[in-house]
Structures are given as structure tokens and as C-alpha cells.
């Protein structure tokens, strides 16, 4: 046990550096997933058959391919088309796109849960589509969306570990290198697991707080 703590003192700074990259990656991917997911959900909700078809097809294709394969594709295949991305960029975009599909489904459920009468009331005072979404539908959809949104956020945070396979120096990647070079598998992976937990708990609390804050009106 004593050895664990002395080793931990050495490993922790390295792992924390990885944790910083993990957080950066998660935030970047979350922003992409949220914005793009919202676009996909609105395309589906718009009632326009072409937009809806495009959105549905995209979601089904992306959902049908493992995140890992998507990351390989973006990092190793796109350069052949002249699109060169750093490992971090590829990771953020790959995870962002993969998760945009889950987010889109969350958002769609939220949008569809808003009473159709709200649409009609907004239309009947002359609102256009964009205004209706912004002022009437989305504020109400947020209520339904927040709990699954928080859940997806935590899944995304954990899935950033998959970016280690395309050499993003996030926490799992750092852990793997440390473990391989020191053979202290137990110490290293216990620390890694503990750190992921430390990152998830604030998100859980945030999700809980958001739900309380916006769950009312």
C-alpha cells in the first residue's frame, strides 16, 4: 500500500497531463456533437422530406460503424484525400461526429415531446420557423433533453479513451505507456480508473443541476 502511494506520486503528474488532454478532447467533441446533432435533429424535424432523408441516412450510417473504425478512417484515410489532421483534431472530429448522431436522437425525442399545439400557437401569431424553434419549441424541448444529454456527455467522456489508438496523448494513452514501461499495471490502471471517475462525477452533478434548474419552467 505504501508503495502504491509513493508510485502514485510519480505517475500522477504524467496521468494528469493526459487527463487535461482528455478534458480538452471531450469538450471539443461535445461542442461538435451538440451543434451538429442539433442540426441533424432540426433537419429531421423540419418536415422537409429531403432534409429528413439526409439526416436519417447520415445517422444510420454513422451509428452502424464503430467509433474506433471512424477514428481510424479520419486519421489514416483522409490524408490520402489531402485532409491532414493532427491526432487531436481527428479525435475531436471523429468523436464529435459519432456522438452527434446520439445527440440528434436525444434532441429529436425532445422536439417531438413538445405539444403540436405549441407549433400552432406560435404560427397563429405569425412566427416563422426559426423564431418558432428558438423562442417556443427548443426552450421546451430542453427539459426533456437534459437527462439523456447528461448521460451521453458522460459516455462521450469515457469514449475519449478510444482516441488513444490514433495516438492522442490522452489519459488512457499515457496510462498504457506508463504501465508498459514500469509493469506497475495495478497502480497505473487504478489511478487511471480513479481519475476517470473524478472527471465523471462533476458531470453527473452538472447534469443533475441542469435538470433541477431547467426542469421547472
Amino acid at each position: 500500500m505504501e508503495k502504491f502511494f509513493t508510485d502514485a506520486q510519480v505517475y500522477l503528474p504524467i496521468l494528469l497531463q493526459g487527463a487535461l488532454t482528455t478534458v480538452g478532447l471531450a469538450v471539443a467533441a461535445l461542442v461538435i456533437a451538440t451543434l451538429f446533432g442539433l442540426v441533424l435533429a432540426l433537419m429531421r424535424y423540419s418536415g422537409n422530406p429531403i432534409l429528413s432523408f439526409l439526416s436519417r441516412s447520415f445517422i444510420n450510417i454513422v451509428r452502424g460503424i464503430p467509433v474506433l473504425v471512424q477514428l481510424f478512417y479520419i486519421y489514416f484515410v483522409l490524408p490520402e484525400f489531402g485532409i491532414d489532421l493532427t491526432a487531436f483534431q481527428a479525435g475531436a472530429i471523429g468523436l464529435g461526429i459519432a456522438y452527434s448522431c446520439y445527440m440528434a436522437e436525444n434532441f429529436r425525442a425532445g422536439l417531438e415531446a413538445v405539444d403540436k399545439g405549441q407549433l400552432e400557437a406560435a404560427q397563429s401569431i405569425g412566427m416563422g420557423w426559426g423564431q418558432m424553434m428558438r423562442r417556443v419549441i427548443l426552450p421546451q424541448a430542453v427539459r426533456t433533453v437534459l437527462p439523456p444529454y447528461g448521460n451521453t456527455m458522460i459516455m462521450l467522456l469515457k469514449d475519449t479513451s478510444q482516441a488513444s489508438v490514433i495516438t492522442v496523448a490522452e489519459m488512457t494513452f499515457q496510462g498504457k505507456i506508463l504501465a508498459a514501461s514500469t509493469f506497475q499495471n495495478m497502480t497505473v490502471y487504478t489511478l487511471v480508473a480513479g481519475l476517470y471517475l473524478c472527471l465523471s462525477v462533476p458531470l453527473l452533478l452538472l447534469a443533475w443541476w441542469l435538470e433541477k434548474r431547467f426542469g421547472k419552467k
Partner: protein
Amino acid sequence: MITIRDLHKRFGDLEVLKGIDTTVGKGEVVCLIGASGSGKSTLLRCVNGLETYEGGEITFAGEKVDARSPAIRALRTRVTMVFQRFNLFPHRTALENVTEGPIHVKREPVAAARDHGMALLERMGLAAKAGAYPDQLSGGQQQRVAIARALAMRPEAILFDEPTSALDPELVGEVLGAMRSLADDGMTMLVVTHEMGFAREVADRVLFMHDGRILEEGTPEAVLGNPRESRTRDFLSRIL
């Protein structure tokens, strides 16, 4: 003001309006009665462009009502609607519900819109509830806020889609009272209703609809008191 000529509307294979012809003049109060499924609400919704139609034409003050045209938005600010289930915005207070359209659609100055909104709530007897959210109001209060919301656009006509059907019986009176005061002020109103007492006392004209057609049309005394058609008599004997 509202002219409906040979209006046809279908939902898939089901033809719900089979050639409607009527007009609503400025300042006129017209009540639409008839059994559910007769097409009353659909007709009303066509007038506001909430439904498209396949044949015939609706015009409002000479302008064609076309749900697919961008002009429908401007038209909707001139003909507003009150719904059976109120459809207030639950995330906004009573006053915000009322001022939403004037501020964000018509771009009226905020202070003026608020003053006007307060005056309308006052008129509806709800000045004290300006800051309340819809779920803190009774059904009758919610519907009166909805009427204030429709009025806030300073419309030339208001459409009412069974405005009292979702209310507890003891709350019907306050809503009908508010509507009556609008009628007294000369507002043009097209009202789908099952309240025969209201139709009798307030309407200038009553239309009886059956199976997608207007079967009988005339003064309340004529249609409600002395109906020509057997179907009208059947309907009235069932409802009264």
C-alpha cells in the same frame, strides 16, 4: 372580410370539406355548429393557413390565404386564433405570452407592448396574474390569457376553435363573457362552438355544418329556433 368559395379539403382519401361557400363580413360574429367530424375545425384552420386546401379559395380582405406562401405569416398577424386547449407557452408568464407576438413578430417597442399587454390582461380581469405561469392558472384564466394574446396582435378578425370545450362547466361562463365583450366592441369573429346559448345571444349568423358541407345558414333565431333541415333538428335535439 373573409370569403370562402367552393372550398375542398381532403386528408388522404377522406374528403372533409366538400365545397364550402360563405362569407364573414367586417364586425360580424359567425358561429359554426355541427357534430364532431363535420369539418368545422378544419374549416377554421384553413382560414388561418394551419391547413392547406386542394380546391376553391379563401380570401381575407381580398388577399388569398395560402398556407404554403410566405405571405401567410403577415396574414396570421391579422387573423389570430384561440385554441380549444389554450396552447399558452408554458415557459412564459401570462404577460410574456401576451407580448410575445407584438415584441418578437411585430417588433413593437417593448414598453408599449407591455403597456398594451397589461391593459388587455386587465380587460380580461387578469391584471393580478400577469406574472403567473400557465400551470398556475385555471383553465378559464388560461383561455382568457389566450384571448388577450390573440388580441395583442391588434387583429382584424379572431378565429375561435371550440374555446370552451376543454373547460370545466363552471369556468365556461367567464370565457364566454370575455368573448361577448369582444363581439360588443365590433370584433370580427368566426367561432366553432357547442355553446348554443352563446350562439343564440351573440352570433349574427349561425352556420350548421354536416359531413363537410354547410347545410343550413341564417340568423340564430332561424337556424336554432326554427331549423329547416331535419339534420339540423336532429343535431339540436341531441345537444340541447
